């Protein structure tokens, strides 16, 4: 039987199918916010390389506050919300649950909510993402 305290035994976090009506949260750093606190188009990008996904958190396992608190400096970030169905209507974008369990990383990286939005983030995709997000925590509300 697996020892839940033993980090050498990864927890069984199956990659789950994400329904269309699910919601995703995403941090936006203050350097990607305009004077009104709204994200620049550049906030919507794959990390760290274009072949990776855009990093988000599935609402099923996260709150907006938990998403914000995963940042190095939470108060430097806003949190926006995306509806999965809207994301999937944008060309070549796929939404995949990609939970992370890296207890030995520095700092440890454990996030069952982690979800990637795969697909190139060209100008069309980024402008379309700009039209579907909803702000849920403004950066200045956090100070």
């Amino acid at each position, binding site marked *: 039987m697996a020892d839940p305290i033993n980090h050498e035994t990864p927890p069984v976090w199956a990659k789950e199918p994400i329904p269309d009506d699910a919601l995703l949260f995403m941090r936006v*750093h203050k*350097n990607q916010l*305009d004077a009104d606190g709204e994200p620049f188009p*550049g906030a919507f990008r794959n990390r760290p390389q274009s072949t990776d996904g855009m990093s988000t958190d599935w609402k099923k396992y996260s709150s907006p506050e938990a998403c914000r608190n995963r940042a190095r400096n939470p108060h430097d970030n806003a949190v926006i919300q995306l509806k999965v169905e809207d994301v999937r209507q944008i060309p070549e974008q796929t939404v995949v649950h990609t939970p992370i369990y890296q207890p030995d990383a520095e700092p440890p990286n454990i996030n069952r909510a982690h979800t990637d939005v795969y697909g190139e983030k060209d100008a069309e995709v980024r402008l379309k993402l700009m039209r579907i997000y909803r702000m849920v925590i403004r950066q200045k509300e956090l100070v």
Partner: protein
Amino acid sequence: MVVETIHQIPLNQTLAEALRASRRILDLPDDWDEEGSPSFRETTWRRATEFVKLAALAFQQRFGVWIEPPRILPGPEGSIDLHWRTAERELLINIPERAENPADYYGTGDAQDAVKGKLNTALPNEWILLWLTR
């Protein structure tokens, strides 16, 4: 008021000031978003601002008016975004960090009114500003 010239032809003050202010993007250090994004190269910024000058000047010479300056913004992977919004249309042009790569653009009004493709930024491409303002 003449504040800057390109090929000995003056730019208007609003445009010149926006281009000058955009140089702040070069002050962003590596990891400026705390997600590992790189700082911006001066060559990328120069390519972006020279393209705006070239396009705006060609548009002014052809149609007699100056275009409003775009927002000049940090983009993904060391690229720079040029972002225009009007009451009817929106245009995003991405200037990549790699000088040999063309710019990527997308403009949209409504569902039946969109433009998309690649631009050679050595050319004025004033047609795209005409599309934006039409």
